[in-house]
């Protein structure tokens, strides 16, 4: 009955993309936010961003929605809208103060995630993007389990170039395989830094074992692209602005846009194949 409830609520969601890592601090939330902005640039598309990082919800700040509260209506919880076609939900909106720590064990976190999926009135959605915390634990198991009521197009896995990150990302890839979650591909963030003054490139996080590209070759996973470090990215996130809009000329923006396009193509192709089957 629960599964039926979830299925009903998520019936109007066309595509679902999970943003995962395994490693913390590699840019999952940043990527999720920009993916949402990028997709919502097409005003004909309805985009939803769900932040299930219960201990460290970054999405409200990155989307410029800190301090917003969730409203209840007859049809459920209302997402907070950044644009008419871009709605956001995060545990961050449920906290009375942004410094409140949510110190919950697994079962309570799972309960909230289920509630988000069951009680949020997303309406008709073209893309549901789910931002996750680092790791392979309760939140990840639960979201895959609950979303099996609908279908997940796949996961985008984010990493940085160094082996210490790749080590955790390989585990995440194995997690995806274990739970039969398709992998759309891997994004390598913080991949090089071009000095705005002298234009020289430095590897701030050297890919000592070949970086994400080599790892993808070894594991037969699609490599979606590299995004260079740009201090403007962090600034835009802190200020709740879209980096893509604030720095349209940055090489990082170009990279993000290419990657977003590839994700869109993957989802649309997936959809066509499903329609064919049906």
């Amino acid at each position, binding site marked *: 009955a629960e599964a039926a409830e979830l299925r009903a609520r998520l019936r109007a969601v066309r595509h679902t993309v999970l943003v995962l890592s*395994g*490693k*913390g*601090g*590699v840019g999952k939330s940043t990527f999720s936010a920009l993916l949402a902005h990028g997709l919502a640039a097409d005003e004909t598309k309805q985009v939803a961003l769900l932040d299930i990082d*219960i*201990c*460290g919800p970054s999405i409200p700040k990155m989307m410029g929605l800190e301090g917003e509260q969730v409203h209840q209506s007859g049809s459920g919880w209302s997402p907070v809208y950044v644009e008419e076609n871009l709605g956001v939900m995060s545990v961050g909106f449920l906290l009375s103060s942004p410094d409140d*720590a*949510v*110190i*919950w*064990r*697994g*079962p309570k*976190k799972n309960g909230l995630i289920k509630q988000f999926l069951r009680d949020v009135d997303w309406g008709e959605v073209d893309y549901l993007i789910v931002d996750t*915390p*680092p*790791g*392979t*634990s*309760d939140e*990840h*198991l639960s979201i895959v389990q609950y979303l099996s009521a609908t279908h997940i197009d796949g996961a985008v896995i984010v990493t*940085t170039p160094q*082996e*210490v*990150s790749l*080590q*955790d990302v*390989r*585990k*995440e*890839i*194995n*997690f995806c395989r*274990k*739970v039969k979650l398709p992998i759309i591909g891997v994004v390598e963030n913080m991949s090089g830094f071009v000095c705005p003054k002298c234009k020289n490139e430095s590897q701030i996080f050297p890919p000592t074992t070949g970086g994400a590209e080599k790892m993808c070759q070894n594991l037969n996973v699609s490599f979606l692209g590299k995004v260079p470090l740009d201090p403007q990215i*962090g600034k835009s*996130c*802190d200020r709740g602005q879209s980096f893509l809009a604030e720095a349209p000329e940055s090489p990082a923006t170009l990279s993000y846009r290419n990657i977003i396009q590839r994700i869109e193509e993957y989802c649309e192709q997936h959809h066509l194949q499903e329609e064919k089957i049906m």
Partner: protein
Amino acid sequence: TLAERANLAGVQHILLVLSGKGGVGKSTLSTELALALRHAGKRVGILDVDLCGPSIPRMLRVQDSAVHQCDSGWVPVFVGQDKAIALMSIGFLLERPDDAVVWRGPKKNALIKQFVTDVAWGDLDFLIVDTPPGTSDEHISTVEALRPYQMLGAVLVTTPQ
């Protein structure tokens, strides 16, 4: 129990390295802190309770080590230039390094409790406990398990943004 207390009884100070945020350098700092304290002549141990992403073994070049048990519990892996830093990490218990530890809270809690009470640390001046990001099962269980002992306190790590 007496046996439980015995393994941490010889530890003078327990230091937790926390953040909340991932990827800010907790494991890096834990490693450097341990090496610096050792360099200053202290007896040091590291406990890596990041079950999903154990980074410390690789940072100390012992990612291929295995652990075994003795009468008083798990024997830590000895690392560092003089092999005098005692390290215990879930990383050592994985059959394959790419295996994901996909566990829910209760199973993680059981392992952490075992880690805290079942490792034969011996006499240490400092035990540094490296944690995963967040404020969840691992953190609650680690603090609960360590509460009866000499917890010096927590060092919090962040980045500027």
